[in-house]
């Protein structure tokens, strides 16, 4: 890169002082914002996100402040977005694949500890009371407490509980629930008004060592924190019975009783997600069968949509075709309707009891295809719907590509005595594939992961008999994984597992694409020789 510094040194001095100022102000504002963001991310325990924003932060600062990086100023926005929205999600997915992130391990360690440390318990000697809050003009509180035996007290911060009775000096008369209407210097609050102060539950009433906190709208008690965290050993100790909980893969587990503290947190578990997916029969299921269908489905889809699209395009390529525009417009309609709607309409039309298609086949052929219960029919149904959805695309593409094939080639072929099949086979197809080849691959890759169609039309069904997991005859990898990791797969949401499998799917798709690009190179060779 020799153009790294296209600005001659002398020119730098001509930079307008105003624009320099503007640049510095911008950098300052950006740094403030990014700094605040990083601080918040660290607070939440999202260190990866903080790191990535840190990288963007450095990038922007270096590029905007160093004169040597002048040329990159134009690119810095794009680069920042690349880091934030492409590279970071990819790295994050890879990281997640090595963790147990999912139900039961949803929080970061800090977040989980914050929840656990909030837990309190009432020691055996501790007492609990019903409370009513009173407030003084200087915003200090007093509580009117009554215990189970009917004793009543006034509690203030820093002093011991004061036994008190309604009607005593300085205390108002009791209302119907036995609570005084007023205490000298304080006004009574109703429970909801008292609760609008979110600091109230944090206030420790009573004297040191025997403090009382509000636990709920009806209870205040001598609460103690239940678990104490030892950061050095990464253990929690239960204050109630002294049990020690050690960290086992993101769950604090007692070594003596095996008890676990909820919630667990997100922990790195190494290759477990990958190994489990390949090894465990409860996850793997009929993986091979799904994989085979996963290759068959896009292959047939691409071939069928391309063939039909090309056939129609060839038909319309004939200048004398009547009402060409009308037909072409009509044939494009499937492409313009959102596929979500189309798929659901087809689903309705193929309904064995009420669907129009099955109604027609029943009347004419005396047979109602079991689209949703027989494996072969289900696969045929999916392919049929995908043909409907996909052919207009190839019709459009090939119509364009056909125009670009020089007409003199055909004339030459005619002179050489070629029939129309020969000229299609030897001129149209090879030249067309040069232009359309990459699109075929794109379509193949798209259909390889065509989750929407499979999920909406049939949700992978009908089920495979004897499969060890919930798997169906039309399940492709991505829909199978969805059921396994997100939907009703029985394991709850498992981001770790899903990420691990998505990485495996990435390698499969990547390999296919590479191999197919080899083929396109071959087509390019063809075009050179023509």
């Amino acid at each position, binding site marked *: 890169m020799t153009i790294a510094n296209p600005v001659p040194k002398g020119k730098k001095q001509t930079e307008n002082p105003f624009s320099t100022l503007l640049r510095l102000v911008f950098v300052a504002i950006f740094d403030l914002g990014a700094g605040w963001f990083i601080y918040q991310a660290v607070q939440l325990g999202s260190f990866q996100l903080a790191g990535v924003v840190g990288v963007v932060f450095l990038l922007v600062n270096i590029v905007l402040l160093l004169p040597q990086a002048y040329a990159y100023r134009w690119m810095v926005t794009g680069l920042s977005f690349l880091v934030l929205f492409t590279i970071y999600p990819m790295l994050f997915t890879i990281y997640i694949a090595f963790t147990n992130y999912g139900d039961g391990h949803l929080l970061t360690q800090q977040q989980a500890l914050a929840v656990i440390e909030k837990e309190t318990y009432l020691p055996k000697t501790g007492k609990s009371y019903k409370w009513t809050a009173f407030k003084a003009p200087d915003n200090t509180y007093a509580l009117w407490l009554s215990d189970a035996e009917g004793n009543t007290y006034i509690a203030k911060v820093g002093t011991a509980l004061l036994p008190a009775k309604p009607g005593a000096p300085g205390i108002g008369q009791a209302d119907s629930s036995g609570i005084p209407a007023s205490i000298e210097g304080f006004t009574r609050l109703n*429970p909801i008004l008292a609760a609008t102060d979110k600091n109230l539950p944090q206030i420790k009433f009573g004297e040191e060592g025997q403090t009382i906190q509000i636990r709920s709208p009806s209870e205040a008690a001598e609460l103690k924190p239940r678990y104490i965290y030892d950061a050095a050993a990464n253990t929690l100790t239960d204050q109630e019975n002294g049990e020690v909980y050690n960290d086992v893969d993101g769950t604090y587990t007692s070594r003596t009783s095996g008890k676990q503290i*909820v919630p667990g947190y997100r922990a790195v578990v190494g290759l477990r997600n990958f190994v489990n997916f390949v090894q465990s029969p*409860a996850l793997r299921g009929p993986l091979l069968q799904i994989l085979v269908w996963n290759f068959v489905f896009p292959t047939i889809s691409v071939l069928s949509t391309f063939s039909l699209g090309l056939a129609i395009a060839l038909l319309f390529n004939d200048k004398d075709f009547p009402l060409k525009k009308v037909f072409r417009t009509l044939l494009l309609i499937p492409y313009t309707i959102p596929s979500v709607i189309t798929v659901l309409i087809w689903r309705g039309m193929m309904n064995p009891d009420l669907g129009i298609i099955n109604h027609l086949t029943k009347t004419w052929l005396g047979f109602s295809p079991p689209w949703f219960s027989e494996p072969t029919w289900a696969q045929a149904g999916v392919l049929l719907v995908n043909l409907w959805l996909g052919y207009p695309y190839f019709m459009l593409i090939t119509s364009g590509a056909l125009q670009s094939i020089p007409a003199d080639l055909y004339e030459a072929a005619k002179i050489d005595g070629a029939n129309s099949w020969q000229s299609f086979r030897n001129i149209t197809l090879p030249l067309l594939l040069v232009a359309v080849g990459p699109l075929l691959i794109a379509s193949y890759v798209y259909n390889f992961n065509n989750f929407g169609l499979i999920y909406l039309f049939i949700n992978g069904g009908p089920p495979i008999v004897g499969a060890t997991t919930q798997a169906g005859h039309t399940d492709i990898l991505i829909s199978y994984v969805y059921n396994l990791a997100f939907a009703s797969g029985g394991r709850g949401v498992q981001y770790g597992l899903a990420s691990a499998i998505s990485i495996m799917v990435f390698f499969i798709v990547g390999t296919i694409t590479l191999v197919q690009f080899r083929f396109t190179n071959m087509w390019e060779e063809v075009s050179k020789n023509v």
Partner: protein
Amino acid sequence: MFRKLYLVLSLFVAASMLLAACGGGAATPAPEQPAATEAPTAAPATEAPAEPAATLVMWVDATKAPVFKQVADAFLAQYNVKVDIQITDFGQIRDKFQTAAPTGNGPDIIIVPHDQAGVLVANGLVAPLDLGDKKSAFLQPTLDAFTIDGKLYGMPYAVENVALFYNKDLVTDLPKTWEDLMAAGKKLQDDGKATYCLGFGSPDYHLFSLYTSFGGYIFGKDAQGNYNPQDVGLDSEGFIKAVQFLDENVKNGCLSSTIDGNTALKLFTDGKEPFFISGPWDLEAIKTAKVPYGMSTFPSNGAPFSGVQGFMLNAKSQNLLLAQSFLTEYIATDDVMAQLQTGGNRPSAYKPVFDKISDPDLLAFGQAGANSQPMPAIPAMGAVWANWGTAITLVFQGKQAPDAALQDAAKKIRDVIANPLTGMVNVPGSYQNQAGCGDGDAGNWKPDCAATAMKKSDDGKSYASGPFKLKAGDYEAKVALDGTWTTNYGVDGKAGGDNIKFSLKADGEVSFSYDPETHVLTVTIK
């Protein structure tokens, strides 16, 4: 001229960068504090200042939102506390809450069905709540539904269960047994008046009452009355009988071999189906269709599943006390609970309202659910949902015999519940970091470490592991089964007993053997 252009250009670039920076900040999930962080003041309500004293955010679904909006307005007027009602699809509330809550951005209050409570608690996202004196005003089973490990996590407001709808034009005598029901349906079918005998949405949830009539169950109960995930009843005798009964009726055409709730509803509202099992969610459609419908309890004393809907509190909420007070002091009142019942089409979980139900449909749902069983809220239920329906579908499609299909499904469920390490016998202890289980303390006391897992002897009567090369020192260990601490044995084979101690005077080799009968671990030191 050139300078001016340069100035304009640099201004433009700076502005565009600023814009871009703003865009970036907004698009990434910014960890904002919830809206309710203004300095809280317990201002007397009578003054009605412009700023609300606090804000509660609540996620409810669209059908209940109008009721809550009214409640919120009244609450604001009375206490100067704003309740921000945000509409979220009922089925999506849990998912969205799980995404939003850990960041501190979640709502203070959500409404959820009780069978999702278990996962939310396991994820540490919801706080326990205390209904105080109001507790006795709720139907006890609805409170039980939200009680997890002895703690109450939700305030119930409605119960829902399915009932048996029937077409009054087609059915005159209500069937006493399922056999009667199918026979009545078959007769109508033969007369050309009905397409199928009985319609239902799904073969698992909707038909649960039929399985119970035959003695089927999902999970057995342990001594404390909690569902026991180790006792899966899907392949129990009663369950198989029930499915065989269904299978016969599919084979003779009484039931459709394709299960599709929408088709079933359409056939019922078109008057082509005498019986239809469904819940409050289809009531509106049935009413609109003007089909002469009646509702009844299930034949053969069948017990449907019941679901309880309730409020739960965000563990990260800044306003936990206020949210609780709002629920117990304001929502749990006759007035609001009655409005929720009418708006939601489901019988109330609040006794004073439940006792006064006059609407015939609600009454019918209440009667059909009188003997209902709460849907198990244990996480293992997920595995059941995934496999139960599949098994019945395979039977309906004639792919598998009832017993085989149910045994397969039960096995799958047991596999998921058991975890991949079922059957592992291990000796977790303080020696493990020298046996290849990891470094330092983190490498010790791991019941799932493959490097120290024991191998079964050929006669299957004992397990052995080692020898492990260990440094001189004192060690402790235990026996743990299935890769977890759930079942573990200590000194003298006592379940959950003390750690087994052993020490090496010099560096040496240690092997373990374990007797599955007596649970005693023998340590051999060389």
